[in-house]
């Protein structure tokens, strides 16, 4: 029973990381206390785990009700690109080091052993990497072409188009950096084919999703992350009382409305300029 409680508390600690920091301590205290009382109330382990797993749904609901403020590291566009480049740099070094190591191993008498142990030999893996990287770049370009362009209630079309071009450039740079991260991930996991295929591709998809969400939550004028998210509407009233989040630009450029569940046939977000 004690071991189950320890695992359940560990699970709660892990899931609590997905909560906004201000709500984490109270949420953890509530759930940990309830789990303790259930465990010590003679309830079976299945029932107690069923209760504990329900915390994931609670976390998702809390995240929806309390949209998070962005990290200061990615607040400005320059900061965001710099952070991504700084993450890229050590991975690039590691990738270069590991690729030279793999080449040495390939020309080593140990190569037969490696060939026997790995499903994808190193040189074939390089070809496969190039193929996957090209495919990913293609996906990135397609995604970039479908970059979220908000509806805008503004008359200044020239200024708007200039800002939009900057936003597209920033978006493409972000996608390129994400693709290069994926490439280094592939190189680093060359000797572990399952991790290479599933892990790296999953990480890449997550990075693309993050890039799209990040772009949605940026001011189209200054490209800084929008702040002070507020939840509007109700999830079950999607027709008359739209379920959306409202963000405001810290520099006062405007207000962005992003629907939580966008309807088809309509622009996914709306920008209301204030200056």
């Amino acid at each position: 029973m004690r071991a189950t409680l320890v695992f359940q508390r560990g699970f709660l600690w892990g899931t609590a990381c997905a909560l906004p920091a201000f709500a984490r301590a109270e949420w953890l205290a509530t759930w940990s206390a309830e789990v303790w009382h259930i465990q010590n109330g003679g309830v079976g382990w299945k029932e107690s785990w069923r209760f504990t797993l329900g915390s994931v749904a609670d976390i998702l609901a809390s995240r929806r009700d309390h949209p998070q403020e962005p990290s200061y590291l990615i607040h400005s566009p320059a900061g965001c690109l710099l952070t991504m480049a700084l993450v890229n740099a050590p991975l690039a070094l590691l990738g270069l080091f590991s690729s030279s190591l793999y080449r040495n191993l390939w020309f080593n008498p140990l190569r037969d052993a490696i060939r026997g142990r790995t499903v994808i030999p190193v040189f074939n893996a390089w070809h496969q990497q190039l193929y996957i990287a090209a495919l990913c770049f293609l996906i990135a370009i397609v995604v970039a072409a479908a970059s979220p362009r908000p509806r805008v209630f503004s008359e200044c079309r020239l200024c708007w188009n200039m800002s939009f071009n900057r936003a597209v450039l920033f978006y493409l740079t972000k996608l390129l950096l994400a693709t290069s991260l994926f490439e280094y991930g592939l190189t680093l996991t060359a000797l572990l084919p399952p991790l290479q295929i599933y892990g790296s591709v999953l990480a890449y998809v997550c990075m693309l999703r993050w890039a799209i969400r990040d772009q949605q939550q940026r001011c189209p004028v200054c490209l800084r992350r929008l702040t002070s998210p507020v939840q509007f509407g109700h999830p079950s009233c999607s027709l008359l009382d739209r379920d959306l989040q409202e963000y405001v630009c810290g520099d006062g450029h405007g207000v962005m409305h992003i629907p939580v569940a966008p309807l088809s046939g309509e622009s996914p977000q709306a920008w209301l300029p204030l200056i």
Partner: protein
Amino acid sequence: MDDLPALSPASVLVLTSISQGQIYGYSIMQGTAMPSGTVYPILSRLEKAELIISRWQERPPEEKDQRPPRKYYSLTVKGEAFLATENDPLATSVQVGAESAS
């Protein structure tokens, strides 16, 4: 009565369960036969709508065991008013009549 929010049937069930004396999360789950992943988000929303209020279990200082305090929920005046409206057949029939007229 205009400022009372519109609640889903599950939320009304949770509210009714609290009014019947089930005051902590697991007992509300047992009373409503709903899983924890449904009950706790509803409790958060009801608290945000000020229909219920939560407080931590008070423990006498002489208790030396490691028992962590539970979170208890109770109805607010607004929550009681909501339930009274919800359980009032006349109010319900007026509401149904108004909806069918519109």
